[in-house]
């Protein structure tokens, strides 16, 4: 390997980082966009929320993981703002340590942004995974502290929740909630926001109607964010939106690097076959 090529290979990651940082700063060209024309997921979401009574109490199961949360974070923040904009009361619970850590950060963000704390209730962390889901179906009263939502939960138990929103991750996602929690409580809309990696396992639940609406791809999330009208809660939206130019650049680099390796491999194979034919 020549010194020049060695230098280029060593410096490539730093150059890529620099280019990505620049792409995040410069304005996104009009031809690039994350959202799509397919609004089915957004319509299902809106339809599920339209069926809720005024000022609904919603259980938010918050169990994303640190690795995939950046993919869904902008959508989660807009969804929470959207629910608060419709005067919903949100009770948060986590079943994984990572989900709990991320929830604490999100709750502190909501506090910093002056969200009415009377509309939020932190039910804390419940260990035990599937066993915890069964326990929550019986009612989270034991973990409830104070406030209007707490009083409602103390009297009605899990029946106080008029909808369930699952923010899923690799450990606990909509599948576990549908299998362990939903059969033990009265029917209610179940919404979910998940990283793409979970989509194949939750699609059957969506098709069967056990899940009412899912944002399971970055495109669905971006389409929803574009259409969400948050009114006075626009400040809860993540700003700036993930830059499409940065994504395109990263993907283009990945495509170029993989395609180069693939072409080189095919060329080597063709060269080897040619030499075989030339042999007497």
């Amino acid at each position: 390997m020549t010194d020049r090529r060695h230098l280029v290979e060593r410096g490539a990651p730093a150059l890529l980082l620099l280019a990505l940082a620049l792409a995040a700063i410069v304005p996104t060209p009009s031809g690039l966009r994350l959202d799509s024309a397919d609004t089915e997921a957004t319509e299902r979401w809106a339809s599920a929320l339209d069926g809720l009574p005024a000022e609904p109490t919603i259980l938010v199961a918050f169990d994303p993981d640190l690795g995939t949360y950046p993919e869904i974070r902008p959508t989660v923040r807009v969804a929470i703002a959207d629910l608060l904009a419709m005067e919903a009361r949100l009770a948060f619970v986590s079943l994984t340590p990572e989900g709990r850590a991320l929830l604490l950060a999100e709750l502190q963000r909501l506090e910093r942004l002056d969200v009415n704390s009377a509309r939020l209730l932190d039910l804390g962390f419940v260990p035990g995974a599937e066993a915890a889901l069964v326990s929550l179906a019986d009612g989270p009263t034991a973990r409830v502290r104070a406030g209007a939502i707490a009083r409602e939960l103390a009297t009605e138990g899990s029946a106080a929740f008029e909808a369930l929103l699952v923010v899923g991750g690799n450990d606990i996602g909509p599948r576990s909630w549908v299998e362990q929690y939903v059969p033990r409580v009265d029917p209610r809309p179940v919404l979910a926001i998940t990283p793409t990696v979970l989509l194949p396992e939750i699609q059957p639940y969506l098709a069967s109607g056990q899940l009412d609406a899912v944002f399971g791809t970055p495109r669905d999330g971006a389409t929803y964010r574009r259409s969400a009208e948050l009114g006075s809660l626009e400040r809860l939206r993540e700003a700036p939106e993930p830059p499409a130019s940065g994504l395109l650049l990263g993907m283009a680099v990945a495509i170029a690097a993989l395609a180069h390796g693939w072409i080189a491999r095919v060329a080597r194979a063709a060269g080897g076959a040619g030499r075989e034919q030339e042999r007497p």
Partner: protein
Amino acid sequence: MRRPVVAALVIVVGILLLADFLVVNESLGEIAGLVIDAVILVAAGAALAGVVSLAWRRGYDLWRRRGDPIGAILVLVGIAAMLVAGLRPGAEGAGDPAVGWLVAALLAPIAATLFGLLFVTTIVAARRSLSGGARDAVLLVAAALVTLVLLLPVGGEVGDWLAQAAGWTLAVPVAAVFRGLLLGIAILAAVFAARTLLGIGATDD
């Protein structure tokens, strides 16, 4: 002696929970609730034991001057920082602002950085596997290339077509393979559960 006890426990707890799920009975519900609470306590205890074991192991390694001393110090300092932030006098536990800062300003960015590095390491690994010449590596990289092209954030008609194609790929071939895997795992779990219930071990094969 140990195997029949485990099998008996599994059978009793399983039947109890199933009966509670199918039959509405207050006494049964209370007993099932006790069992579930016991499971939750065991899970919480196991998590705590895991943390204590990790701290003990790293502390012992440090004391015996073996392994990775910098890694051990970082683990112990991390555990201590989180405990002090949440348990110091006057702290609000897990909801304390100091704990939130440690999570939001340190833990989440560090994890995001590690996952960001996956971008580079995955490409390097893919290129290395290609240079190895294995046919499945070529197929894997070709599939990755197609997926990347389908997910390009392009607008207009081309973007809509790519989005539709990506949706179809996720809903049909990827979902089919994934569900096949899930079914296989479910069948294996059912077989393992049946073997446990019947007390069949590896020595009986």
